């Protein structure tokens, strides 16, 4: 009597289970079987000349401090004999991370170095255990793209004890250079902000209203790209007023919905500074939807992805400041030099290029 109306079915237990499996399989099948996406747009995926893409060090921005292996502790090594561990911070779903990981892998392959990799999927505690795993798998040199700058003590204690050199790329680890880590290789985010400000001032002739699409809150990239921008605007263009500062969370959708709101309530906005390309492209979509044309609002973004550079050619984006993710060559070069006993600079700042109407068409092949 305590049975439900399905009592009459011959095997009331196995049938639903079977159905669940069937439904789950449909999901997977649907998604994979006979899929056919859109044809790729014309132009092809030509990689451009690799020379134009390579990172170049900015000698002036780098500090004087250097680090050699006898200061750091540990023993010299020949890079081709050791295992290198690479810990990536975020999922390889955006162009920056994809290109960064590819660059590290390609360089390892080219040099014939054994590389083991991990990805923390934006989970900081996972990145700590990732790095510890890399060490236990025998990594003798570590290349780390840190998710956060703080909180690395558990790893640093272990690497210091074993004399494992750490090279951090794109974001820094807070600690003492040549004691906690060997070197940091990356862009100067504040400088990117200042250069974005220069481009904005140029586009507006020093007069007008600017909105900032911020990145994720509490992220040092967001903070520094904002500080650099405001500093330069304040110093050089008192006629420019920053009227909006809202977060688009570094996503295209965020950039789109925030821009829709602000363009609606302030149609006279003259420029938008998007702290990454994705939000900038979202802003383009929003402006298009609001009936604006290319060039009505000057958009300046940071990153240098192909999608954004193509929008310069179309006239929608005024300028893109590059943040070059191709860390492979410089990171391995530093690791090799360090292992052979040479002195390595502890703060290696790369020169980022910029794209605008004058060079976008010619150099779009260099964009990632």
């Amino acid at each position, binding site marked *: 009597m305590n049975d439900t109306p399905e009592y009459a079915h011959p095997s009331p237990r196995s049938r639903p289970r079977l159905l669940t499996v069937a439904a789950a399989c449909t999901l997977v099948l649907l998604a994979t079987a006979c899929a056919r996406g859109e044809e790729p747009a014309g132009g092809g995926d030509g990689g451009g000349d690799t020379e134009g893409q390579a990172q170049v060090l900015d000698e002036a921005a780098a500090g004087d401090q250097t680090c050699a292996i006898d200061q750091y502790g540990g023993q010299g090594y020949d890079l081709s004999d050791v295992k290198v561990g690479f810990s990536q911070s975020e999922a390889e779903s955006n162009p920056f991370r994809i290109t960064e990981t590819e660059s590290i892998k390609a360089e390892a392959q080219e040099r014939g170095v054994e590389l083991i990799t991990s990805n923390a999927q934006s989970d900081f505690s996972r990145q700590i255990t990732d790095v510890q795993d890399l060490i236990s798998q025998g990594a003798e040199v570590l290349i780390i793209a840190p998710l956060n700058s703080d909180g690395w003590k558990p790893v640093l204690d272990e690497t210091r004890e074993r004399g494992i050199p750490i090279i951090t790329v794109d974001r820094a680890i807070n600690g003492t250079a040549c004691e906690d880590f060997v070197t940091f290789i990356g862009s100067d985010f504040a400088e990117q902000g200042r250069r974005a400000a220069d481009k904005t001032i140029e586009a507006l002739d020093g007069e007008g209203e600017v909105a900032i699409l911020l990145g994720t809150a509490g992220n040092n990239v967001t903070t520094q790209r904002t500080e650099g921008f405001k500093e330069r605007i304040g110093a050089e263009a008192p006629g420019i007023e920053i009227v909006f500062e809202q977060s688009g969370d570094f996503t295209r959708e*965020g950039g789109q919905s925030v821009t829709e709101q602000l363009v609606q309530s302030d149609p006279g906005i003259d420029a938008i500074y998007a702290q990454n390309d994705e939000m900038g492209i979202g802003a383009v979509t929003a402006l298009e939807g609001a009936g604006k044309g290319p060039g009505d609002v000057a958009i300046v973004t940071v990153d240098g992805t192909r999608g954004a550079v193509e929008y310069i050619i179309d006239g929608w984006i005024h300028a893109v400041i590059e943040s070059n993710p191709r860390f492979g060559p410089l990171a391995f070069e530093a690791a090799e030099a360090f292992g052979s006993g040479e002195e390595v600079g502890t703060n290696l700042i790369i020169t980022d290029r910029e794209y605008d109407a004058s060079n976008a068409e010619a150099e779009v092949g260099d964009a990632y």
Partner: protein
Amino acid sequence: MVRAVSGVRPRVDRATLLAWTRDYGVYVGVAVIVLFNIVFTPNFLSLENFRVQAVQVAPVLIVALGMALVIATGGIDLSVGAVMALSASAIALYLGYGPVVAVLVALVAGAAAGAVNGLLVAFAGIQAIIATLALMIGGRGLALVLVPRLQGIRNEDLRALGSGSFLAVPYVVWIAAVLVAVVVFLVRRTVFGRGLVAIGGNRRAAELSGLPVRRTLLLVYVLCGVLAAVAGVLTTARLQASDPNSVGVLIELSAITAVVVGGTPLTGGRVRIAGTIAGAVLMQLLVATLIKHDLPPSWTQMAQAAVIIGAVYLARDRRRT
């Protein structure tokens, strides 16, 4: 005696007031925020503004419709954001066959995801929060395996779906309006609609009175999955890109908030579609107001939290007898 009487009377009044606020407070909230904006926000009273707000609220509203039905049965669906991601990835994968096929595949994917939830909840007897949590994690994972990085959509028809209008009203808003009508019809005029509320009210009683409880539950989750897939299609069309990594992130919370703020109790047994719409609009206007006045995003989160606590406080007296 006297004391007891005088103690009871105001309590009854307070209860009536609470019940009224619970049922109609959301409309008062919308009215207050609209009035505030009319006075303090430049260009608020413009067609363009209503277009922006309506277009932005549409996906959340569509997801919230499905969520309202699921919550009315006493369940919950945490997987709606993941289903949107699946639907977005299906669009990117199948657009080569044309937009109609791609949209159909996306909807079928939504139905299949809903079926997994429904079967786990209705037949395997797994708690809704656990069953749908599994798909919330696994679904987005699958979507990311299928389409690991954002893919631009160039198909003109699909882009028009996201940005075009008919009689000066965006397609996106038309679709949301039609879906509202369909769900209202289901709830008010069909046996299925009565049944799902009855299940939420008292599942045992519904079973004993011969309602097809399991079939109804299955159908409710399938419907919720399809509605989430529609939201995924519209978001993709509007963004002109399929982005499984960020589409629909945290939308389950916005949808649940809209439903609860709109006066549908989380315990089920009751469903308020008009309230759900007002709830979604209230949250949208809250975000819009804070952006337009350039207040920090943390304020938005705190304001939303305040509204949710208020709504849940008002709903706390609801005891089923």
